[in-house]
């Protein structure tokens, strides 16, 4: 595939992920960041909505900052499948040549991004924790922590378009809706039919999605929990907070993936973040750095988490957590149960 002329490409696109007529929160977060990027490069912000009966989502995208919404409406786009979504997206990219495309880092978003980056020969960067525009060139600067170090790498895509990035939930703040905000909603030609689809969804079971990104207090457990999240749950209860976990704890199966904090999990911005038995790798810090007050509880006094905390207690978390939970309940005037 020949290199493209980057000058032919313009517009910042945000893929609005939706299921059953409900947009994913991460998509609104990216739309807000897309607005910032589009303004920096004096470009248009365009939301892409695919599905059946999604006009209310298109209207919401305008209210949340899009200049324009492209709507591909057809039953073939319900529920999500990578082939029809990918084929439609390839067509839209070839016809309309977007400069930048942002996609939420959910499982659906990552399934979609990996699929569509290939036929468009896009430069795709996964799980970015910062996005910016290079002043002289207008290039997207996609930043993510490096493996095995404490550095951030900036990934660029200089000769191919579009420049694509996935970002996990909570990294950016969603914009408020602005009722009456004006923009253009454009229905696009659907180019996909059954011949593009070689898979089918037999069953889809979705319950309530755990969301730790809005919590005011977060108590997170790491590898030091050694399989027992009881102390973290109890402390979270005393603080009226949400339970969260490090990647290691999720990989060990001690906590559900939706509660993972970090580069490959969620970014939280609570008033109080308590890190229990978490060493403090950069990938984790990226998900908790926006917290107002950070408390660390760890038995290793040299753990990097103490350098990234306001208050630390060095000690056995299985003793510190229950004692702290009791002290907090006492301070709040609650009855101490244990």
């Amino acid at each position: 595939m020949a290199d493209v002329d980057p000058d032919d490409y313009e517009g910042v696109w945000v893929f609005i992920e939706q299921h059953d007529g409900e947009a994913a929160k991460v998509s609104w977060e990216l739309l807000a960041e897309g607005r910032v990027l589009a303004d920096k490069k004096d470009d248009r912000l365009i939301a892409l909505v695919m599905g059946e009966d999604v006009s209310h989502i298109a209207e919401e995208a305008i209210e949340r900052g899009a200049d324009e919404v492209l709507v591909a409406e057809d039953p073939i786009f319900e529920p999500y499948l990578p082939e029809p979504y990918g084929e439609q997206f390839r067509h839209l990219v070839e016809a309309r040549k977007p400069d930048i495309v942002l996609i939420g880092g959910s499982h659906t978003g990552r399934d979609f991004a990996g699929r569509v980056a290939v036929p468009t020969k896009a430069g795709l960067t996964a799980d970015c924790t910062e996005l910016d525009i290079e002043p002289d060139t207008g290039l997207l600067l996609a930043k993510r922590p490096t493996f095995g170090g404490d550095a951030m790498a900036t990934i660029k895509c200089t000769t191919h378009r579009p420049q694509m990035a996935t970002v996990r939930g909570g990294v950016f703040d969603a914009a408020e809706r602005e009722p009456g905000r004006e923009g253009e909603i454009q229905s696009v030609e659907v180019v996909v039919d059954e011949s593009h689809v070689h898979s089918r969804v037999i069953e889809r079971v979705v319950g309530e999605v755990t969301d730790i990104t809005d919590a005011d207090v977060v108590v997170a457990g790491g590898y030091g929990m050694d399989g027992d999240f009881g102390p973290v749950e109890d402390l979270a209860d005393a603080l009226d907070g949400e339970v969260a976990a490090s990647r290691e704890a999720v990989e060990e199966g001690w906590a559900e993936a939706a509660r993972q904090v970090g580069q490959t999990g969620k970014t939280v911005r609570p008033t109080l973040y308590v890190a229990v038995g978490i060493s403090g790798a950069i990938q984790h810090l990226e998900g908790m750095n926006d917290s107002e007050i950070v408390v660390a509880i760890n038995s290793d006094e040299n753990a990097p988490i103490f350098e990234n905390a306001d208050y630390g207690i060095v000690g056995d978390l299985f003793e510190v957590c229950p004692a702290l939970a009791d002290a907090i309940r006492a301070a709040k005037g609650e009855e101490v149960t244990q």
Partner: protein
Amino acid sequence: MTREWNIVVCVKQVPDADDVSIDPETGTLNRSDAAAVLNRPDFNAIEAALELKEAVGGTITAVTMGPPFARAVLETAVGLGADDGALLTDRAFGGSDTWPTSLALARISEELDADVVICGEESTDSSTGQVPPGIAAHNGWSQLTYVEELEPDPDNDELIGVRDIEGGHEKVAAGLPVVVAIEFGANEPRVAGLHRKIFSETEFEPTEYTAADLGIEDQVGLANSPTSVGGMDTADPVERKKQVLDSIDELVEALQEEGVV
């Protein structure tokens, strides 16, 4: 029509996380001086391939792209029960990002006439998860990512996967050929049998492929990678008070002063 399946399992040699450096000139990972191990999520991919073979019959070929010493991860896969191994090794592959990497794996999967290609969820060194859908896209095959369980339906040439999605799961039937990314931790990888392990270390020889063998010598490597590392910074540390306190009472007092308790 029921028939046996050609199963390809993609594996990757990754540097041990504690033992890695970054090339200051290119900003890419310096893999040559780190202890090299099999990417942990790939053990789940190998296990899924073995279970699939037990269910429908067929052969498993482990595939990796890397320097000559990456054959070690093929030996691991063969020791665990893969029937054969293919090593994609060529200086031309050097510096490939996920686009050319998934192209090379797509071409070898075609070459091996794969019905099912199984990958780990992502690699621990670059953790993009982009290669499995990339392979599927290059070949125009179906894809199943974040798979917790697999259920083959050889009578209908379909593979059914239970996928983990936000807030729940979905069951998807995919027509063959299909590329699968197994969720990390989805199964309990078996331990290699002694005879097979000895065979893999003494007698097994992988088939080697160059970029030209796959007809992609002009489409791989750093020059054909859409993305490049444009710089490295140290992370901006957030200013914190860094006060290590001696007692829980002091901590509660501090939190009360901050107004968070």
